[in-house]
């Protein structure tokens, strides 16, 4: 069955472009004071300039990805994942320290965040595995365990970096994909429950994690340490939201960014959105991510093949999960941890990799009839049949 040559999902493209463009505005506002007061920068536009470069690269990467047939990735996913695993190990051994955690690897001026790479590599490979397992997935040993192996490997490597939040999110993502892929809920719950003791050990092994958790629950009153710093940041973040009220204080008028709210242009940028654009802005952002969720899962539902389906699910859930996690952190609903707001937060590789992922999603959409009129039967397409190339509208 020949795949219909469809348009890419313009809605997703538009909202993502909207997010990227608004991120330049918001990051400029949120970072100017910090940049100006940074002895190494001393210019209000110092940080946003770097951000703009990343956004431009993101654009380019996205348009490349839109035009690459997603099926071409399938044979490569294993090797990319293996590469990412090696990268993770290398970083652990020889990475540069950032905030006490080894999360970055510097290669000729470009800071690469291996966990970011590994995350997408894992999603891609899971899509490959899920699409070829079929009903075998119901089998614990043959179907489930091999999948679990890859998820476990990546999560452990990311966590020992140590980067708990990304590890946890990757874990949730992986399990979600396996679950949607048809694994039995029993297996999923079983493996998750097996994780619990490991999680506890992991928590206790690092005092700062413990403090974060305890302070979140309200048991620790540690004024000098991480908890106090977290609380201060969280409080300042919430003050930002509250100060915005319904309509916000206006574009570029944030005051929380004037050295009150740490990371105001990074993980806590949502608070600046809330301050400058009020609840209108914040709810709009949430709706945009809901839209991406809805459209992305729709692409998955009608994707021409299983690989595309699982890839679409993985990409969509990754982006939406990050957006949700970031929102919950800034709103103080889950313990403070470093999760960027996709497309919006100032940040290196995250923007580029998210843009790339969206490009892939859009490519899938270009080969998907999102409004099947005849029947709800899935279009089963073999890869060899017609390696279609997605079109840019």
């Amino acid at each position: 069955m020949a795949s219909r040559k469809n348009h890419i999902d313009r809605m997703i493209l538009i909202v993502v472009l909207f997010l990227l463009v608004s991120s330049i505005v918001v990051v400029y506002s949120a970072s100017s004071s910090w940049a100006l007061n940074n002895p190494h920068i001393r210019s209000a536009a110092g940080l946003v300039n770097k951000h703009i470069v990343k956004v431009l690269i993101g654009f380019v990467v996205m348009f490349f990805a839109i035009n690459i047939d997603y099926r071409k990735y399938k044979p490569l996913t294993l090797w990319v994942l293996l590469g990412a695993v090696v990268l993770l190990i290398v970083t652990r051994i020889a990475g540069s320290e950032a905030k006490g955690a080894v999360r970055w690897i510097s290669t000729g001026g470009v800071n690469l965040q291996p966990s970011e790479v590994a995350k997408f590599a894992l999603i891609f490979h899971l899509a490959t595995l899920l699409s070829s397992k079929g009903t075998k997935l119901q089998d614990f040993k043959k179907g489930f365990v091999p999948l679990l192996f890859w998820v476990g490997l990546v999560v452990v490597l990311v966590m020992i970096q140590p980067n708990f939040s990304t590890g946890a999110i990757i874990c949730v993502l992986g399990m979600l994909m396996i679950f949607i892929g048809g694994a039995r809920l029993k297996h999923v719950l079983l493996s998750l429950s097996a994780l619990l003791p490991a999680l506890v050990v992991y928590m206790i092994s690092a005092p700062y994690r413990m403090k974060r958790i305890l302070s979140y629950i309200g048991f620790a009153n540690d004024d000098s340490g991480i908890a106090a710093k977290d609380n201060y940041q969280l409080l300042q973040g919430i003050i930002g939201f509250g100060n915005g009220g319904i309509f916000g204080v206006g574009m570029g008028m944030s005051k929380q960014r004037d050295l009150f709210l740490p990371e105001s242009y990074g993980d806590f940028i949502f608070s600046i959105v809330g301050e400058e654009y009020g609840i209108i802005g914040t709810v709009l952002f949430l709706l945009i991510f809901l839209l991406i969720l809805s459209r992305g899962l729709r692409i998955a539902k009608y994707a021409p093949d299983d690989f595309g389906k699982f890839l679409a699910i993985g990409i969509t859930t990754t982006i939406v999960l990050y957006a949700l996690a970031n929102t919950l952190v800034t709103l103080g609903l889950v313990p403070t941890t470093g999760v960027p707001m996709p497309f919006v937060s100032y940040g290196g590789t995250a923007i580029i990799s998210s843009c790339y992922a969206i490009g892939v999603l859009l490519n899938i959409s270009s080969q998907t009839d999102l409004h099947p009129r005849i029947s709800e039967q899935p279009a089963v397409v073999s890869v060899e049949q017609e390696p279609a190339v997605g079109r840019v509208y």
Partner: protein
Amino acid sequence: MWNFFHKKNEVIVPELKDYTHRLLWVKVIFIFVFIGAAVRLVQIQILDASKYQDIAKKQYEVRVPLHAQRGNIYDRNGNLLVSNSQFVSFSANPKFSGQYARKIAERFSKITGKPIKEYLEKLQSSKRYVVLEKAMRPDEAEKIPVDSLVGVVKSNEPVRLYHYNERLGQVLGTINAEYVGVSGIEQQFDKELRGVDGYVVLQKDGKNRARPSTDYPREDPVNGNSLELTIDLTYQSIAEEELKRGIQRTQAEAGLVVILQPQTGEILALANYPPVNLNEIKSVDLLRNRVVSDMYEPGSVFKIVTASAALQNNVTTLDKKFYAENGSYKVQLAGNKMRTISDTHPMKDITFMEAMAYSSNIVMAKVSNLIGPENLYNEARNFGFGMTTGIELPAEINGQLKKPVEWSGTTLNTIAYGYEVGVTPLQIAAAYAAIANDGMLMKPYIVKREIDPLGNEVFVHEPTKIRRVTSRETAQQVKTMLESVVEFGTGGVVKLPTVTIAGKTGTSRKYVDGKYESGSYNASFVGFFPAEKPELVCLVMTEKPKVGYTGAVASAPIFKAITERIINNNGLIAKTVTTPLQETTNKEDKSIEVVPDICGRTVNDAVRILQQHGFQTKIYGKGDEVMRQYPAAESIVERGTYINIMMDEETPLLAGMQKVPDVHGMSVRRASNNLAANHLGVTIIGSGVVVNQFPGSGTAVKVGARVTIMCEPKALTAAQLY
């Protein structure tokens, strides 16, 4: 939906269906979480928004008070008595200045004249903070080369300056640490003197620094009004000097002088002994103004009331004779008790006038029986006894004048010669002024004018008549009696060839703790001159004089000396007074101004902007853009201040150079320790928490250079961290 829990090993549910279900599940969960986040947003951004907006405002905005300058106090001739200045204090951290201790001690010793040892001891102590000199005068402080003294910290503090130390001490009163008047004129006119503090609302950033902004709500301070007293500094000085001399002669415990103008009630001098040095108050008790706050039994000086009442009620004339019982008069009291009234000068038949001249208690007692309780009481009330005079001084008391119904059997007679009645010295002086003013009682007052900072009169005190105490004729007769006291009676000692003085001596036993203390007297003399046309009333009172206890011996000579000096107009103030210090003036051209933000501007722009705001400029470094400025934008400084401009091309760090650390937000002590630890000196302006520093953090300076830190009280900045 939950049925797939039970699908054990059943075969093949169509995969698609499974996916769709599970996809839906995931979607629903996501949507629920989104809704949860949205609910939280509604809570924060709508329901609780005002709470967070308040917190935000508190942390962005700092109300910096612009202190109003307290008004000055002048005497009637425009002599400045009280104004404001700054004192300079020096402190040090021995830990840092230790090795330079000798050099520092020598320097200070040279300026202050104190022994080197005194400073060395402080500098070599194990404390972390020692005060080397407190409240130094600015001109002296300038001689201390703080810049070259490692670890020495200089700080300025505003100070209320009493130019004449102990002159008029109890009248002027004092202020507390918060600059609020707590005694004397400072207390009574606190509201007028204080003015209204203004403020500027500055925007602050998270590091507690002023944030560049174009507008800031501002309320300029309104400086306090100045007061012009009725006091004549010359008379005051004469009064204080002669009182002191007299008290040294008589070895009295305390004393007081009141000089007032009978026609107006203006107080020209009001002296208390022991004096109080307002610049260095040793005991709060010294601040008590006996003239209005202490009650005395007046003794014979009260006899004018009896005389006035007798003459007014026609019970006697000046020439009517009374038998003075040869100095001892037994009075029959109820219940067969006897009471003896005695006179110091035993006499037989004397006229009423002679009774006054020789101060006969016996005759006055006899006359009082003729006057009757009601009339005598009314006369005393008319003279103003038993109630405050209403003078603008705090803590004035009523005195004590019982109503006739409360009188005992002896009261009528004893009041006649000044016992069983409590008066303040001011009441006595005012009563004599009423006689001198032909029977019209004037309200005594001490503040002549209130002048606002621009020199406009806010208030002018006009003389206030209280009431006619007695007829002009009666007053004239009483005056004649008082002249006779000086002419041939007990007050002869004050007689002067150049002027006729009318007056009265008084000696009363001191009533202490419910009984009359033996050998303990209040001696007073009160009079006015020239008797024909009185210009001044003067009351002198000494408490417990030891060398001659009577009014005639103890107090009259003081009265005479004062009168003599006033009349001969040799009333030059002996220049024992302190030279007035540098004053902080509130001239128009020195008004304060907020420094504009010029960072990022070109040199020419910056200079132009600053000049428009009335500032001068100093440019440092090279380059096109202004990188830093000091004082920082939003600082409040006087117009004409030099604004230092740092250009963007900074000089690289050379050997012997040092980067200035950031001390914003630190306490003064922490900041100075921090700077000292970086081998930098420090000059402190203000107190509390550092809000500004110069040079700014990161600036390269020579090792040992001086960093100026501007501080604000902590209370202000406490708001910042919510």
